[in-house]
């Protein structure tokens, strides 16, 4: 993975994270190693945003990086909302913490309003926008509708090894089996070499294939040409089967947001939909994932 862009660690509050402070605008990076309670912090922040700032639950985006983490986080956030609501309606919290203290310190009218907001959030909890990055991309594709060119009905799937082997076999045969008279195609490449190229280009669909075919010859040319052919042919075969790779969705969202014709409208539309984003495990984000999140949340609040 490429190193995360340095620009990430910026914003007004690159300092010790103070849970008692009010949640400001701009990007906040919480640096924490595993097991130090990031999940806890995120669920506490969601509860505060809903209770005190009146942000509707479906405008808070939470992105994690595995399905398991997403399921856990959904459960944790819901429990947190339940516990906060209970604390506001008179049930003493079993183990109060700083985030809860902020809410409980509010004046009675605010607390009553907060309880009502939490009650509302809990009764529509499945609208909570807690996703993996790829789940988020699929959701964005839905939101974008015809603005994005990928139908959200296509099923995201892993790159299939058999498909890769078949495609590689076909392309090798097509290239080397009957070279045109006088054409020089060089020594045939081995299947495992071509499969390795295929795996590489499908794992990083956003990567540019270098060098340009015009600049090289011999085996280097063969590798470049096969890389391009594999990328096109694999995508075509997956699309034919009604599948897209997980990254295709992200790529399409990214391309749409950057498109000169529809990008601006799409960005406005998505920015209207989400007020705050909380991104867990951002060290695992690769550039394209980061680009998508940035494009949607340029001006709004983002906690990483």
């Amino acid at each position, binding site marked *: 993975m490429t190193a995360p862009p340095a620009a990430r660690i910026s914003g007004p509050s690159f300092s010790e994270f103070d849970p008692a402070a009010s949640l400001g605008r701009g990007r906040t990076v919480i640096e924490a190693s595993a097991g130090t309670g990031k999940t806890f912090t995120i669920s506490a922040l969601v509860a505060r945003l809903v209770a005190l700032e009146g942000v509707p639950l479906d405008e808070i985006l939470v992105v994690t990086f595995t399905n398991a983490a997403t399921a856990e986080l959904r459960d944790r956030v819901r429990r947190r909302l339940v516990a906060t609501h209970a604390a506001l309606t008179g049930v003493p919290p079993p183990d109060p913490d700083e985030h809860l203290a902020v809410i409980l310190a509010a004046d009675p009218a605010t607390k009553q309003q907060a309880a*009502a907001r939490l009650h509302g959030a*809990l*009764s529509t909890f499945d*609208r909570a926008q807690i996703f993996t990055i790829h789940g988020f991309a699929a959701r964005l594709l839905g939101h974008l*509708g015809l603005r994005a060119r990928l139908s959200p009905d296509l099923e995201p799937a892993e790159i299939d090894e058999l498909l890769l082997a*078949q495609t590689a076999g076909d392309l090798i*045969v097509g290239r*080397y*089996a009957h070279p045109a008279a006088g054409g020089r195609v060089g020594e045939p490449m081995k299947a495992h070499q071509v499969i390795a190229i295929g795996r590489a280009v499908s794992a990083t669909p956003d990567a540019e294939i270098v060098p340009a075919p015009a600049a090289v010859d011999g085996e280097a040319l063969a590798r470049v040409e096969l890389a391009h052919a594999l990328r096109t042919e694999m995508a075509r075969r997956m699309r034919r089967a009604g599948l897209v790779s997980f990254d295709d969705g992200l790529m399409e969202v990214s391309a749409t947001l950057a498109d000169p014709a529809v990008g601006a409208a799409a960005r406005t539309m998505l920015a209207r939909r989400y007020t705050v984003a909380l991104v867990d495990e951002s060290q695992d984000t690769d550039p394209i994932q980061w680009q998508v999140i940035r494009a949607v949340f340029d001006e709004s609040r983002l906690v990483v």
Partner: protein
Amino acid sequence: MAVITHVAPHPEALVLLLCDQLAQPPEDPFTPEVVAVPTRGIERWLTQRIASGMAERGAGDGICANVRFPSPSRLVRDVLRATPSLAGAVSAWENPGLTGHVVAALDGNLDEPWMALVRRYLETDDGTPGPNRFAAATKITRLYTGYARRRPAMVRAWAAGADVGPGGDPVGDADIWQPRLWRLVRDAICHPSLPETLPDGLDPIRDGAVDIDLPGRLNVYGLTAADPFELDVLAALGAQRDVHLYVLHPSPALWDATATAAAATPATLATRAAGATHPMLAAHPMLASWAQESRELQQVLAASGFTATPIAAADPEPATLLAHLQHDIHDNRPPAFDPSLAERAGSGADTTLQIHVCHGARRQAEVMRDAVLHVLAADPTLEPRDVVIMTPDLATFAPLLEAAFPVAARDEDGAAELDGLPDLRLRIADRSPAAINPLVRFAATVLDLADSRLEAGVVRELVTRPVVQQRFGFDLDAAGAITRVIDDAHISWGFDAADRVVWGAGDVVDRTWSRGLDRALAGVFYADSPVRVVAAAAGAAGTVPLHGVEGQDATPVGLLAAIVDRIAAARRLLATPMATSQWSGAIAAAVRLLAAPAWADEWQLGQLERLLAETFPAPETGGPDPGGPDPVLTLPEARGAVAGWTTPRPSPLHFRTGDVTVCTLVPMRSVPYRVVGLLGMDDDRFPRTSRGDGDDLLADHEIVGDHDRSAEDRQLLLDALLAAGDHLIVTYAGRDQLTNAPLPPAVPIAELADTITTMVGAAGLTGLTSTHPLQSFSAENFTTGNNGAGPKGRLPFGFDPRQLAGARAVTERRPDATETAAPWPGWAVPDVVALDDLIRFLQHPVQRFMQARMGFTVPERKDLPDDTLPADLNSLDEWALKERLLSGLADGHPLDDLVARERASDGLPPGRLGDDDLDKAVAAASALWDEAVARGYDRQAMAPYRGTVELAGIAVGGAVRADPGAGHLFRVTASRIKGKQRLRVYAELAFLTALHPDVAWQAVVVGRRPEGEGHLAMKVLPFGPAATPAAERRAKAVDRLAELVALYVEGHRAPLPLPCESAFAWQRALAFKDRDKAVWALRDSWETGRFTESRDAAHRALLGDLARADDLLASGFEKYCARLWLPVLAQTTEKPL
């Protein structure tokens, strides 16, 4: 004459009212009663309830007849069609042909600047039409239909030329195409839409000016999410006749509170975000969270002017937790802690609410079965018909339930072996056409075949399908034979070379269907030959007849040829784009080419044709616009259109048959059952969340009453909860099957658990929650304890006797390795041993033991064919190629002929890719061949020697080929010469010498060295030189043969620790008198090295406890090695070439 609304919390109360109505006969007794019902399941229940309700009040004799049960939308549609002022708009706008108009409007106007966004979606980068057109048109049609129903005012504004959104403000730039495209569609249809017609269009109905074929009394039962538009029509109908609306509402108390609060607010539908449905009035959390649809329905009814006083819940004093919960909801009372309930729940005495935490879907199905069996066992008044199992994901759970309830899979007349399980039958009510009709599935397959690569695997799978077997008249055995032809002919994919080009594989005919079939058909007529190539013209490679076909039954080859021919015909039928209505016939014809239903299943064809006609409608023939558009669809578009065949469709016949009913949550919603099971309430299955559609203009302007998937699912759950009479059983996947990590339940189930906790405390919740083990054969499943049924597990939970047997087998003490295993039963020594048997025994004693004594073989690991065009040859194929060449040379064929055949027989990578491999193989085979010839190999001079050698009490029979002139038996092989080859020629030599001791026979093997590159010549010296008297030589050979047979006999009495290659390696190393080196060699061969003989399946099974070299040595291995190998090694010499 009015609309009368009845509201009650329980369906029974509504049915009583309905029966009251029906008990008063209409003026004309032949007029059918009309009762609109939302689902087929409710229709079935109502029929039964009306029949018994009439009998109870003496107004009938328990028969419900002459009652029509249309769906509300069908009722409304019929009314509109009967109204002249509206019929035109309905037939022009509310029919499948609307999509055709949208497609036509899209196609004709892509160049308009305001269509830029849509155009970008529909076209690929190079400006050619992409695959999205039909799907986009379908979606746009759906949006337009929704707008017309839900926001008629916006559509009227569009018709008047205003580009506005649902709020009345101008629509954004990105969506400007929507009103404009709509107007183009309207221009093409040439008829005003329903919203334009409606405001005044209902007047004739109101005034009674139209003759509508409806009785003077209409009943609409079970309105849930009412469409304001439908309510308008019902209100208009109410002007001339009585329209009774029967509305279920979970809480009369909440209805009253809302009605009071709403009285102060105007009766218009507010946007949903404004919280117009007073969620704060819902004091019970289930009503707040689950009853959005009911709350909104009240608002929608009020906005249409329908109000009612709900019938109070007639609940008896609640005794159980479930009843308390339902009571609280009916009365809109917040849940409260109840110590006596808590005590009963905590002790497991109250089983009315059960939550089962399982691993994955399969276990949920089993747990649901056992939980249902427990409640049936505990209460003799309960019958299977009192049980309904509902699941949000029927497609996943239907087959699992069929597996868990073994009887369910059988049809009604198959009486039943019960497999030891109590007889509990299931009736799965709503399944998709694709799930129940193999021809419908086949139609999808055939559409898929039409532009596929036509991989061999596809046809291999096709011939296993009964519908295909019925079409061509063959059985599963023949299917196996057809598959073997496909494999033997090396067919991988592609119809012919032209087909290959499409997929980037160049103009290559190797391993295509056309080449493979040519070979197979030629093989029928030509005897096997290593060099035959037929029809080889100048420049053409010709056809190599397939081996092993001639003289056999030609049926499999003929069938395969016929099937592939039909596939080609089907592809021709479907390949080109055609008008929508033509697809229906083309698909039906393609299906008929390849598939046929069994004679008792002719309905399958009828259903397929109906589905096709529905999916690919012919242009409207009647109405104001006969002949409408019939847009051209491409193959991928047609494929997209049939995707909906996998969605479940209910059939009324399958509900309430007396068996346990299984369905999704919709069809039986709120129908009372004594036991309600909720299966698969997993976080990722329930509730459905709306994906959010950025093209839906209404998405940001939702108003009360708009459809909301997750709210609908929650309402369904509430209906199920309230419909349960005695028990509510919930299962969910609470543990990951692979990692055992805890998984949260579906959010609504967590909410339910929270409410239960409030009522009975955490201990109470624990008491009614069971956490099940991963495996159904776990001992925990069959012991009393926390998971058992009844008060704190008085009874074991599991019911399945097979799983009980499994649990016993797992827990019972098994003898460990130190105990002496029972001796193998005796073995009757045969009179004659075949030489070949003897040799194969020596080459792998344990495998032969397994085969001969235990009656099974471990198949060799064979990779499944992956239908990939090979780019290089694997080592096994390379070896086989060399062996074929050697064998051809030995038969006296010229090398060039052999090479030409190899090139034409598809065994090699295609074209130039195979050149290197072939060159290498030819070089290696020729070198071996030359070495062999130089040592006197002459196959022509070989003669067969057959006979039987009598030993003490046992004889060895067989045949050996040898060259009497040269006095040797000779083998040439592409294999490495190791233990196996030595033992073979040694045994053959002993046999030959015993038969013909006059000659001092020796044996020669030419092959590859055991390690590394290069060749080796190995020689087994005679059993005594030429000068030795024949009798002495014979005596020695017989003696050695007897020793081999003795090992054979011992090795059939018990598995012999004498693995061939390890024994050879050991004994050979020991020859250098260095035991350490020998141990090292043994370890390398048996325990750790590249081939690790101990990992062989037979060795693992029978010598598993000797997997370490030291253990092997301690097992008597040394003694056996010495017996077998010392004489062999003493008699062999070898020379690297």
